């Protein structure tokens, strides 16, 4: 039996005004377990707390009930008081007689009556409280960043800057991601490469950062602070540590007609290749689907010309196992396929391109060396039509397109249009828009400049059909403001394709037990208050894997994710919330219902040996809750058919005792 002390707070007149606090203290004296009951003006004051401490000593209290304001206000305070008095802090229960009683009931009789009942419920509960100790687990002081675009790069640099080791896993041969493919960045128009490549070099030179390029994560086990990750390093057939990136092999490779993915297939590369001049690591990679030596065993020229002896045709995929304390997902985005939108004739004409292709077309390192030329005939286009929202903002049930706004298109289209008018004033530029969305610092000003200073023709309406005919693209569109159907003979049509999460995200989310929305964007732990954390402890989100984002937003989220990681890695031990679920293995059926509903993947199963009454042993599958991962929601406790699963601090018997006390 507990020895419970009850402390009724007046809260000045806040409580005492509509609740007879003496009567409450008196009434609760008769409750089972209560050995001491009193009231005081301000329980949370130093004097009030000292009073509690003294009573604990004097009456050998094992449990405390404070009838006061909301536990959301002072539960932590009174727990500290209890701890200072030598009690387990979780032996405290609060009866909320201010917010949920004195403040909402005007009549002193009803207020007092209800306060007594709430006090009784708290006493009933505390009688069943057990001392709880938060679990501790060690922290591996190294972070993993999955994805090496600007989000991953920034996160890794910030974490490394704080002195922790970071590994970046990037599936492409180089880090840099989408930003490396961009020409200029809005709204300042600085060159993407000029601001990105120094960061890539920083990553390469940072002693704390390792890059696993051309690699992917294949397995994740463990939990916050203690992840075991398997990384697959795909064979690139070039010894990374020996290759100097001189490019002699690339020059001599006879297979020169391989579509170059870095330029989105608008020009060609060789079978052995370095994606672009500033690649990090600057190491060649052999495309096994294109190399004659790997396919047919004939050629071997690259090995012959490599003075460093870096070529290794026998290289195999390698699996590396590493431990991490935290994982950051930065898997980024891709433009959606335009296959289902052929009313814009993307598959029919080379001169209908996506905006990312337009970036490459205007990039000095792109297929046309930065000159804006039509892919079909290399001629300078005089009329360009930009189409916004292609595949964005589609009906939820539509089979094509995405329901959400892709967010970045309005601004990059304004940028493309402006830059085109700036470089080629003889070009007519039309932008068809549904809405122009420019909420961002200097964004709307930028868009207005495109219209007012550069003469870009913004037309409210959509393009309905693009018909390639001769060397023209006949664009049929609506101008809603002048209520006209327009027919424009364009030379180039640029589609602002919706963006979607990278396809690698879905299997990764499964490995991480991190949740995703229906669009395969990672869900955040809380949409407003914990936007860079995933609901799975120790897994953080950076960049467009969480939702469409532009570069400034991505970089700030990357920094935020890094600071969360640093905060985690700075701890030697993780102290958990002790109010977690635990399973009574004697009652557990091993049915998996609990694991099915656990949002955190905190429940695993083990085959355990049980001694039976007849002295035989039996092996049974039982649930085990990892207290470091469990967040204490209690979903499992209700899913459990046998009642084996219970929640500490909010146990079945405790809640039922409260119910009983209230209904008595």
């Amino acid at each position, binding site marked *: 039996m507990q020895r419970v002390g009850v402390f009724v707070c007046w809260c000045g007149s806040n409580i005492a005004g509509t609740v007879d606090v003496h009567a409450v203290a008196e009434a609760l004296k008769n409750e089972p377990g209560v050995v001491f009951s009193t009231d005081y003006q301000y329980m949370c004051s130093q004097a009030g707390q000292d009073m509690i401490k003294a009573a604990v000593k004097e009456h050998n209290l094992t449990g405390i009930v404070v009838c006061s304001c909301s536990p959301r206000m002072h539960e932590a305070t009174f727990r500290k008081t209890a701890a200072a008095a030598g009690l387990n802090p979780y032996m405290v229960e609060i009866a909320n007689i201010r917010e949920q009683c004195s403040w909402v009931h005007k009549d002193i009789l009803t207020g007092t009556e209800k306060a007594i009942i709430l006090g009784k419920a708290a006493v009933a509960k505390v009688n069943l409280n057990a001392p709880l100790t938060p679990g501790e687990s060690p922290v591996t002081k190294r972070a993993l960043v999955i994805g090496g675009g600007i989000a991953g790069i920034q996160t890794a640099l910030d974490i490394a800057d704080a002195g922790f080791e970071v590994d970046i896993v990037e599936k492409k041969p180089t880090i840099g991601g989408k930003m490396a493919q961009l020409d200029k960045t809005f709204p300042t128009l600085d060159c993407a490469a000029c601001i990105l490549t120094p960061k890539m070099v920083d990553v390469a030179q940072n002693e704390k950062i390792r890059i696993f390029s051309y690699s992917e994560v294949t397995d994740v086990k463990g939990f916050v602070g203690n992840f075991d990750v398997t990384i697959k390093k795909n064979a690139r057939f070039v010894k990374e540590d020996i290759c100097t990136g001189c490019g002699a092999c690339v020059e001599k490779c006879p297979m020169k007609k391989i579509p170059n993915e870095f330029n989105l297939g608008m020009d060609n590369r060789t079978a052995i290749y370095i994606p672009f001049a500033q690649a990090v690591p600057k190491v060649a990679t052999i495309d096994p689907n294109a190399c004659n030596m790997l396919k047919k065993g004939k050629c071997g020229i690259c090995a012959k010309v490599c003075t460093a002896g870096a070529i290794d045709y026998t290289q195999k995929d390698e699996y590396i196992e590493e431990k991490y304390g935290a994982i950051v997902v930065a898997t980024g985005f891709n433009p959606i396929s335009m296959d*289902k939108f052929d009313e814009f004739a993307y*598959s*029919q004409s080379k001169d209908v391109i996506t905006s990312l292709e337009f970036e490459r077309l205007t990039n000095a390192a792109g297929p046309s060396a930065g000159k804006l030329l039509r892919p079909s005939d290399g001629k300078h286009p005089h009329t360009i039509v930009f189409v916004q929202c292609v595949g964005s903002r589609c009906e939820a049930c539509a089979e094509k397109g995405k329901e959400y706004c892709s967010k970045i298109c309005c601004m990059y289209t304004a940028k493309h249009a402006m830059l085109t008018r700036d470089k080629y004033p003889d070009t007519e530029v039309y932008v068809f828009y549904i809405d122009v969305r420019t909420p961002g610092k200097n964004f709307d000003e930028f868009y207005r400049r495109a219209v007012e200073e550069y003469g870009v023709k913004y037309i409210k309406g959509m393009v309905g059909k693009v018909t*390639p*005919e*001769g060397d023209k693209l006949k664009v049929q569109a609506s101008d809603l403001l002048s209520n006209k159907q327009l027919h424009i003979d364009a030379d180039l049509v640029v589609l602002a394709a919706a963006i979607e999460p990278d396809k690698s995200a879905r299997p990764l989310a499964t490995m991480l037990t991190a949740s995703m929305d229906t669009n395969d964007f990672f869900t955040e732990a809380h949409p407003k208050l914990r936007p860079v954390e995933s609901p799975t402890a120790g897994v953080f989100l950076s960049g467009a894997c969480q939702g469409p984002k532009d570069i400034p937003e991505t970089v700030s989220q990357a920094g935020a994710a890094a600071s969360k990681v640093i905060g985690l890695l700075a701890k030697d031990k993780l102290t958990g919330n002790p109010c977690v679920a635990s399973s009574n293995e004697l009652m557990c059926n091993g049915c998996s219902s609990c694991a099915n509903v656990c949002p955190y993947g905190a429940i695993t199963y083990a085959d355990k040996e049980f001694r039976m009454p007849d002295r035989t042993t039996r092996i049974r599958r039982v649930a085990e809750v990892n207290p470091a991962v469990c967040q204490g929601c209690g979903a499992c406790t209700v899913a459990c058919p046998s009642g084996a699963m219970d929640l500490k601090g909010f146990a079945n018997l405790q809640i039922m005792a409260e119910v009983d006390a209230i209904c008595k």
Partner: protein
Amino acid sequence: MKVSYFPGCTLKNKAKDLDLYALRSAEALGVTLEEIENWQCCGGVFTTAEDEVATKLSSVRALKYASDRSQPLVTVCSACHNVIKQTNYAMQNNKAFADKVNRYMAEDGGYNGEAEVYHYLEMLRDLVGFDTLKEKVANSLKGKKIAAYYGCLLLRPGKAMGMDDPENPTIMEDFIRALGADAVIWAKRNECCGGYISVESPETAKKNSNAVIRNAKAAGAEMIITACPLCKYNLEKSGADIPVVYITEILAEALGVKEDTNA
């Protein structure tokens, strides 16, 4: 293989060729088209209005006829195909509509969208197979540049038609290639010729048709093929200077059954 066949009004009249060559070609490919007894005209266009029931009953009867025989229902005319498939889709997906229809169908026994509807081209693709078709070709149309004209009725609405990607179709192009010819890809292949507007405003029909023809020719076509008598009429009427031919006619030609050998 035997299938139920809904020819439609025009095929018995102005578009006899479409019908005749469909029958002969199918026979040559091992498919017997069994004409539905007492079929009634589909009405030419599907009315999207929720409260139009009577105008769709002839389609439902045809559908029920086929489903009672556990046969696929095959159509050739794009319009019949469109009406019947949209009706079937409504029977499958719009319970209120299906209930209303079934009140009229009580005597015949109910119908709930069980039938499978194939356009003749789908029949070639899914039941015969373009590979089989390719093998049966006697007179290859090699070197001929043919523009497939889908028009509006064959593919749309994509959900109900379920025939091919409504914006980026390949079925007719694959058909052309199976016959040995070259398929011209062009943008206006799924745009409307003007349809029944030629009653109300022949100029509009002409304008639309001209745009279609111009685009086909610009893409290098020497011939336009269609499954729709009204498309053929509108294109020809607008002064097409390029042959507009029924799909079944070039099929019969390629299979070598164009001239009736039994006659």
